[in-house]
């Protein structure tokens, strides 16, 4: 759906955007990002997971986005979000609106996921191709943070299933859909926040920093 043809056709420029999307995008660009110096409890985190046709953000297709917010210590059922691109058959304006809707939903909150290069890679390409947006949110990468926070469980980056197993959250139902994954990530993230506070990482800004640092350290050393 987000194929090379469409990329060429659109030329990477947002000129063909529907009017409402363009207006929303402009408003979004000029909106202020929430301050990240507040305690976790008061910070709205958006946990996000995607569905894709493969693992390569440059070649494979983004098929869906599932997101849920964590705010005041809980996963909020009325602050969740789900896009299924597969039913749209690449229809242009609707895809643009859905991506824009995700931006509105996330509202520049720090995004939490597992493996930022994978999730972030697909999102970045989609926003770039469709909306001409260089999507650079504040990422919290649990793949790197988990071993840093739960040293006793392992020192290296491990598949998500490993952590689910560690914490007994493995539902054992085989393949999970993106929303199930997001909700599991949300649960693990709540556990992670407790550990983070124990290590004086008590604000979103510090958590984002820690995420960057741990991924940098572990990649380079």
């Amino acid at each position, binding site marked *: 759906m987000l194929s090379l043809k469409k990329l060429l056709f659109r030329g990477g420029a947002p000129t063909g955007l529907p009017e*409402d*999307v363009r207006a*929303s995008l402009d408003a979004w660009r000029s909106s202020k990002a929430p301050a990240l110096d507040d305690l976790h409890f008061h910070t709205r985190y958006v946990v996000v997971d995607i569905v894709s046709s493969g693992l390569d953000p440059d070649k494979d297709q983004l098929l869906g986005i*599932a*997101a*849920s917010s964590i705010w005041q*210590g*809980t*996963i*909020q*059922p*009325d*602050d*969740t*979000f*789900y*896009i*299924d691109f597969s*039913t*749209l058959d690449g*229809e242009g*304006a*609707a895809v643009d*609106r*859905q991506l*824009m*809707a*995700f931006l*509105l*939903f996330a509202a520049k909150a720090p995004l939490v996921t597992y493996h930022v290069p994978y999730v972030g890679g697909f999102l970045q390409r989609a926003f770039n191709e469709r909306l001409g947006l260089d999507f650079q949110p504040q990422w919290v990468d649990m793949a790197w943070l988990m071993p840093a926070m739960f040293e006793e469980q392992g020192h290296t980056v491990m598949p998500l299933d490993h952590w689910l197993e560690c*914490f*007994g*959250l493995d539902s054992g139902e085989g393949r999970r*859909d993106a*929303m*199930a994954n997001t*909700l599991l990530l*949300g*649960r693990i993230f*709540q*556990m992670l926040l*407790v550990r983070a506070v124990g290590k004086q990482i008590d604000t979103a800004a510090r958590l984002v920093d820690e995420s960057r640092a741990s991924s940098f350290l572990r990649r380079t050393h």
Partner: protein
Amino acid sequence: MTTQQQSGQEMVVGQMETALRQNGRNRMAGHTVAFLRNHAPFNKMKPEALQHFAEKAQIAFYPAGSEIIGPAAGNVRFFYLIESGKVQARQAGEVTVTEYSILSLGAGEGFPIGAVTAGRPSTNHYSAVTDTFCYLLPAEDFLALMSSSPEFNLFCTRYIASLLDQSRRQLQLQFAQRASEQQTLNSPLAGIGARSPITVTPQTVLRAALETMSQAGIGSLVIAGEDRKPVGVFTRTDLLERVVLAQLPLTTPIGEAMTPNPFMLEEHATAYDAMFAMATHGIRHVLVTDAEGHLTGVVSERDLFSLQRVGLRQIRQSIDGARNVEALQQAAADVRQLAFNMLAQGVGSEQLTQFISALNDALTRRVIQLNLENHNFDGIEWSWLAFGSEGRDEQTFSTDQDNGIVFQPPADADVAALKQRFLAYALDVNKDLDRCGFPLCKGNIMASNPQWCLTLDEWKEQFGTWIRKPHPDALLNATIFFDFRSLYGKAELADAMRRHLLALTASNPMFLRAMAKNALDVEPPLGKIRDFLTDLEPDAPGKIDLKKYGSRIFVDVARIYAMASGVHNTNSIQRLRLASQRLNIRGDEVNAILDALNFIQLLRLQHQYLEGEPGKQGDNLIDPETLNELDRRILKESFRQARKIQTRLKLDYQVN
């Protein structure tokens, strides 16, 4: 979902966001529902109810060792359903509300059902034993679910009902503990008998010592040195043998008349040791000392006797065989003790109050009989009537006298003179009853009052006047006098009164309406904001009069329905049961009402026994704050039942 997306063409971004949020919510709810389906009672609930739960339930994490909710957290805002992990419930405070003190909860179990239902702080501390995830359903959604889902409602109601059951058992346990504390012969002497007994020194002259005994109303005296070490005892027997018969001058020091070397036991010796010593040495008192030999108490034969369980049969025998009021006084104390034992054994308030009434009846009858030895009414038909709570078989531990006499003068008799004889007799009975622990009626509703010592015709006329002219005094009298029962003598006279009364009420519907209006004057003390109104009695701020604002409401309503449906019984529970059958009130509805009345009565009994000072008339004033959480909740529910029957009465008699 697909319809929303197909129409995506026409949507603007804002609408799209809303639609996609809805998608997200549906998906998340789907996962929550999948969890709920695996657990009772959710597996029995309808899909809409589950969806409602799932769309509102947040997910929260509690690390091992953290408190999830406790009494200090204020009113409970969420119903917690454990998704994974283990939670421990621990009772706050020292008083155990439920039978468990620590309870472990696992996946699929919810808490705190009682507190969230009642919208108040939790009584328990709930803390995560292991890492725990919970679904948090906001309290308002919980309540909405309770009202929309019958299955969920049933589950929660049953849960609360099981708490009620636990509360009742807890109450019994409390009594049982006290009973065993009081009753075992293995208990140490430190807790038995008189503390700090009166002592005199051996140098005290007899006159002074005897005056001390007389003033204190005691039959024996301990003689101890300045160091409070006992050197002897002096009893009435000694007085007779060593003083009076020996013609000892009253100026003699008591040391010369006492029995020296009294038998002593240390405080940690048991009641059994004391009993054994009394049997072996033929003594009636054992002095109790501390380890240094200082006097700390005296245990008498009588103290030990009361340790043994008093049986119903023995009491009946001692009542029926009593030759004088003194013997009956002891029997009255035994009745109280036995009633208490029965409370401990878990006898419900309905049976218990009837049982107290039955023994009190026997006692009263014996007093009536004993006094007949001095008054002769041969050849005259008469009956001693019990009114009020005694008339209803609903006596609690502290009930004053409400009685009267009905008599049928022979055709040629001088009614006025006969009445004088009955009044003189009644006065003796009233006084003796007072000595047996039934205080004289403050309102003078007693047989010795000429107003309530009437011939059958006078009673009929009196009833007729009250019913035809139901002014406030008449209505007040009706609430006391219409609950009558024959206690002694010709029961047919009371039956005739009742038939007359029911015929009168049946033909005067306005009277019942006035009674209904009167019964609705007092409302159960339920607050709009607070749970209870505790400032209704100016003399007792912070307290609720459980009689005035509790049981009396039920009693008044029961009386009206009984008279309306021609029920002859006077007992409120029987009245409500029988009247409800005649008036087609649903069985479960009546049972809920009766449970409420029983609970209030049980609380009254408990209060009177556990909090009343021994030997003093107990009251009905309870401070709801001192009740445990559970009793408070049940009391509130009981008051709701009171409001319910009042509402019914209001409708039935169209009182506004």
